[in-house]
């Protein structure tokens, strides 16, 4: 595997999870979650703490990252989001409230980094997580394991949403909250579960991304535009669209930088953030509702299928 492909796969699976987390929360609660930035960083620090203090591989600490991320989600729901949803606050207000929560979390992360430095004499402000990785077939193991974990996570999520009773009631709430409420679905619980899942996804995604990039306390803060770009590219209407969008954004960033730097020289590396943003802007101009807005079914039917309905 080319080095850009292995790093790109790791990074893209992380971005896919975080973008999926943003999309899931947006379609359920209409909240654009800024706090994903800090939740991702928290996930990374949970894994870092485990690896440096207790040893072992990063992968065995992922469950803890998911749990801590879910807890931050629960706190945000009960402390903030629930009251605003009850008040029927505007979309921008919901967005700003998560921004405030994100900044509080960011300050706690910074303090935690200080604490780690002082008490355990670690260097948590510039971390290369891939040092703790091992190799398979001469490649970094993360390039195989992380996409697999991401796929497994998404499969479980898919079965949860389509096969379990609660998942179906969750989808019903997404489709039509009022109707779901009248048919006896507890929307409060649906919102809570969506915060739990998206918190866990964000933390897991952050710990993935740290395997491909330098882990810092402001890691999430620098990558949040890309997470949002992934979610927006996916169209914000469909959780699988968000995941696909994150994957596309992550892979094109690595592939694009690799190709451009090869042809134009290394100065292009500094502008790497421009590539995914350009892709997002271009896609939005052609498909204003993102990737999931592409009428793929219609196109296929038009080309290969028969016309439905009374063809008189």
């Amino acid at each position: 595997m080319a080095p850009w492909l292995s790093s790109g796969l790791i990074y893209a699976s992380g971005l896919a999870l975080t973008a999926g987390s943003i999309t899931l929360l947006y379609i359920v609660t209409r909240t654009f979650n800024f706090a994903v930035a800090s939740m991702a960083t928290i996930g990374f620090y949970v894994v870092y703490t485990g690896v440096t203090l207790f040893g072992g591989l990063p992968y065995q600490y992922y469950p803890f990252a998911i749990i801590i991320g879910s807890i931050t989600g629960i706190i945000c729901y009960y402390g903030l989001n629930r009251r605003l949803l009850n008040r029927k606050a505007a979309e921008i207000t919901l967005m700003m409230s998560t921004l405030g929560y994100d900044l509080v979390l960011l300050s706690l992360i910074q303090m935690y980094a200080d604490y780690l430095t002082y008490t355990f004499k670690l260097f948590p402000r510039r971390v290369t997580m891939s040092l703790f990785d091992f190799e398979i077939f001469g490649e970094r193991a993360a390039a195989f394991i992380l996409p697999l974990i991401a796929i497994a996570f998404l499969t479980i999520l898919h079965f949860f949403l389509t096969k379990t009773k609660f998942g179906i009631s969750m989808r019903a709430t997404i489709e039509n909250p009022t109707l779901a409420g009248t048919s006896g679905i507890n929307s409060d619980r649906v919102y809570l579960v969506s915060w739990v899942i998206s918190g866990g996804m964000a933390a897991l995604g952050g710990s993935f991304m740290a395997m491909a990039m330098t882990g810092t306390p402001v890691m999430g803060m620098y990558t949040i535009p890309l997470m949002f770009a992934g979610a927006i590219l996916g169209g914000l209407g469909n959780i699988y669209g968000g995941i696909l969008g994150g994957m596309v954004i992550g892979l094109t960033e690595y592939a694009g930088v690799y190709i451009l730097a090869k042809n134009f020289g290394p100065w292009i590396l500094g502008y790497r953030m421009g590539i995914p943003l350009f892709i997002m802007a271009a896609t939005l101009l052609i498909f204003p509702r993102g990737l999931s807005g592409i009428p793929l079914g219609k196109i296929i039917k038009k080309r290969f299928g028969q016309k439905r309905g009374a063809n008189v």
Partner: protein
Amino acid sequence: MITKESSGEKFKGFIASRIVFVLAVIIALLAFLYFSRGISIILSILIQVTIFSIITMSLNLETGYTGIPQFGRVAAVIAGAFAVGAIPGRIMAAFMGLPAGAEYASDTVNFRLVPQINALLASSWLISLGFLVMCLVLAALAGALIGWLISRPAIRLKEAYLGISLLAFGDFLMWVGHNWSIIVGGSTPVNVPDPFRIFGADRFNVIVPVFFVIAILIFIYMNKLTQSPFGRNLRMLRDNDLSANAAGLNIVKVRTQSLVIGAAIAAIGGGLYVIYTGSVAAIGLTRLTFTFWPWAYMMLGGIGSNIGVFMGVFLLTILRTMIIIFRSTWFGFLLQVGIDPLWLEYTLLGAVIIIVILFLPHGLVPEKVAPMLPANRVKKVMAQRQ
């Protein structure tokens, strides 16, 4: 009719009492700081207040009055800062026969050039004044250009999409400045010629009133603008864009105008900030300082209220400064476990946003929708018509 009028009177009285109360708190805190730390801390607070109130007022025009979720305020600030960092110094250098091309921004040349320009500026107050005006005009032009550029794709998008695109654009501009060393030196900061050098040791004491006057002028301009028919259009667009469109308002045009004016004013704020600090480092113009802090100021002060914005900036700047100067005395317990109390600034920022949203949704000074003409004059006009 009577009840409506009296409730309006009551609302006015309520706002006035709020303003007086907040002002009293601000003055008390300032007095406390003055007696414990001296005048210099007051001056540094005032300078931050002027710069950030300009930036926040421009944010208020776009978000509070027009309803655009401007999460990319930093883009216009960066445009102003880059314009002041890159262009006026080059013009002066070319004028004096010094190197003014790409090499102006390289750190080995720049640190020798700027003192020569400063020496010329210090020799005549006319040149200094002209330089300051040139800086501000260039900053406003650059900001307007960026605002127009942003408005092109932004017009098509809606609420959250728009906010995120603006945020991404602001970040991207910062990285461009950080990597493209021709503009402002890339990763090494570029010095800005100092139009206040002529005052020597009194530089700081002069900057504060000058900036304050500029801020007051912009405040008056904003008040006039938002009370004018244009301001009415903006509010109409914010409250219901469909009905505004149905009433014959050209939504795209009004939005573009609001974005361009707001960006030009924010760029003036960015230019003043750069003149005050004396150097431009692209990496220092962060989203946190120039987008999120202004948002917090605006939300605390009251969205859609210019005087409220001013109070919000004042109050929060004082609190920020207090965290910085009392960090070892008040937060010594954090230092004992190795935590830098400066991070509490972020906590304050986040907590203010959360508390305002939960308990004070309209801010300290809520928006007051005043009629364009005073009520007695409206009555007179009506009487004349009949």
